[in-house]
């Protein structure tokens, strides 16, 4: 058993390193992004090997699925024109700064060596914070340790993270509104029957899965991030399949749902602070209810923020390169489910 496990881990690690190397050195950006998606899927597999199913779920949906779609769209947008000019200029630049390249390579190598030394030099037995977390689980309000850490013990991190997401969405919306012409050009022609049929089959399942993940987060792998990512992925699919148009979603609805998580989080934090406790120190009796409320609000927010981020990166219908790229995006989306 142990030999097989070693063999599997060895192969997985080798494949990860190979994919990372080839995606970074690949000349064709489209291929590089496809390799990146494969890399994300193998990362998800690695997380399960490292007993981190929560991260595996998030990685499979986000890195392999959502980031992949966004990157493919961007590659299509950028590759539309002047690709030869760009590579040539890169080559010219590369020749000019050869000494700098060597220096930077050496610096990165040195840093890498120092990190490897640090990793191998770590004290072998240290339970870290897990004993503290275990001791406090009784007052957490949930039985899943990860959820307890995310929304109770380290609620600060999650609060700030949701704030970062809202900021990213505001940034994207601002830049997008300045560029309406590109946003208006992305509507695809209807009539892709396979895609239409698949959307009808997959969307209800995705909604069901996201509901399950939200519920499961209390005691098992799952929770707000995975639910939000799944909702976002469903939105991506609807937008890609032309079932939903970003322009048709009322702006107030989008703004409210995107800021819901942060607003409720701040209200809860403020309410607790006013009642004389420290910020985000939930009363033990109500901790479970508060966490469920926060998780629901954060899920909805993450889902709508991801839709905003996607809509701010519209697939533009102007160049033929993009037409080749779009079917693959749909496949990615399915795969990430």
């Amino acid at each position, binding site marked *: 058993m142990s030999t097989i496990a070693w063999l599997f*881990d060895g192969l997985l690690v080798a494949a*990860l390193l190979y994919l*990372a190397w080839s*995606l*970074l*050195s690949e000349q064709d*950006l489209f291929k*590089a*992004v496809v390799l*990146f998606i494969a890399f994300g899927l193998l*990362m998800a597999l*690695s997380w399960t*090997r*490292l*007993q*981190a199913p*929560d*991260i595996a779920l*998030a990685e499979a949906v*986000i*890195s392999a699925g*959502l*980031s992949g779609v*966004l*990157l493919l*769209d*961007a*590659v299509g*947008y*950028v590759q539309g024109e*002047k690709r030869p000019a*760009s590579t040539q*200029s*890169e080559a010219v630049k590369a020749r000019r700064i050869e000494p700098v*390249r060597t220096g*930077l390579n050496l610096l990165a190598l040195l840093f*890498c060596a120092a990190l490897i030394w640090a*990793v191998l030099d770590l004290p072998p037995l*240290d339970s*870290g914070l*897990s004993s503290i977390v275990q001791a406090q689980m009784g007052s957490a309000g949930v039985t899943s*340790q990860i959820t307890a*850490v*995310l929304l109770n013990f380290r609620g600060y*991190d999650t609060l700030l993270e949701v704030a*970062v*997401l809202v900021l*990213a969405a505001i*940034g*994207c919306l601002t*830049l*997008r509104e*300045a*560029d309406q012409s*590109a946003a208006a050009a992305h509507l695809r022609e209807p009539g892709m029957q396979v895609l239409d049929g698949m959307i009808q089959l997959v969307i209800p399942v995705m909604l069901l899965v996201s509901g399950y993940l939200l519920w499961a987060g209390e005691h098992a792998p799952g929770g707000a*991030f995975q639910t*939000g*990512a799944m909702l976002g992925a469903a939105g991506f699919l609807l937008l890609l399949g032309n079932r939903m148009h970003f322009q048709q979603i009322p702006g107030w609805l989008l703004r409210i749902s995107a800021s819901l998580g942060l607003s409720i989080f701040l209200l809860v934090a403020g309410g607790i602070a006013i009642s004389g406790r420290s910020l985000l120190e939930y009363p033990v009796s109500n901790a479970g209810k508060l966490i469920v409320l926060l998780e629901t609000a954060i899920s909805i927010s*993450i889902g709508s923020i991801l839709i905003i*981020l996607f809509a701010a990166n519209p697939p533009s219908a102007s160049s033929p390169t993009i037409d080749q790229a779009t079917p693959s995006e749909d496949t990615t989306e399915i795969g990430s489910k």
Partner: protein
Amino acid sequence: MSQVTLYTLTGVILFFMGLRAFLLYAHLVRKILAFNVMGSGIFLLLVGIASRVPGAAPDPVPHALVLTGIVVSVSFTAFGLVLLRRIYAKTGKAHITTEMEDTDAQ
């Protein structure tokens, strides 16, 4: 050396590959890809460090941090790509040249 160490070291090497590509490539899409690979390396490193005690359940705090990190990295990627589109729309270039140094800082 345990299997966890294997993944931790892989994380370090991934970080190195990403860092190198991030510094050396001028194309902005490549920089964003490299940034994501760097992130994956750091996440592997963190989770590897979290499960150093053999047989025991892994430390949940780094796991939660990594989960947060993955969601932040997708928002970073999306925002970076929006900026890239604006740069491309304004200048017709998707890579860094000397007159675009300011854009590089973002």
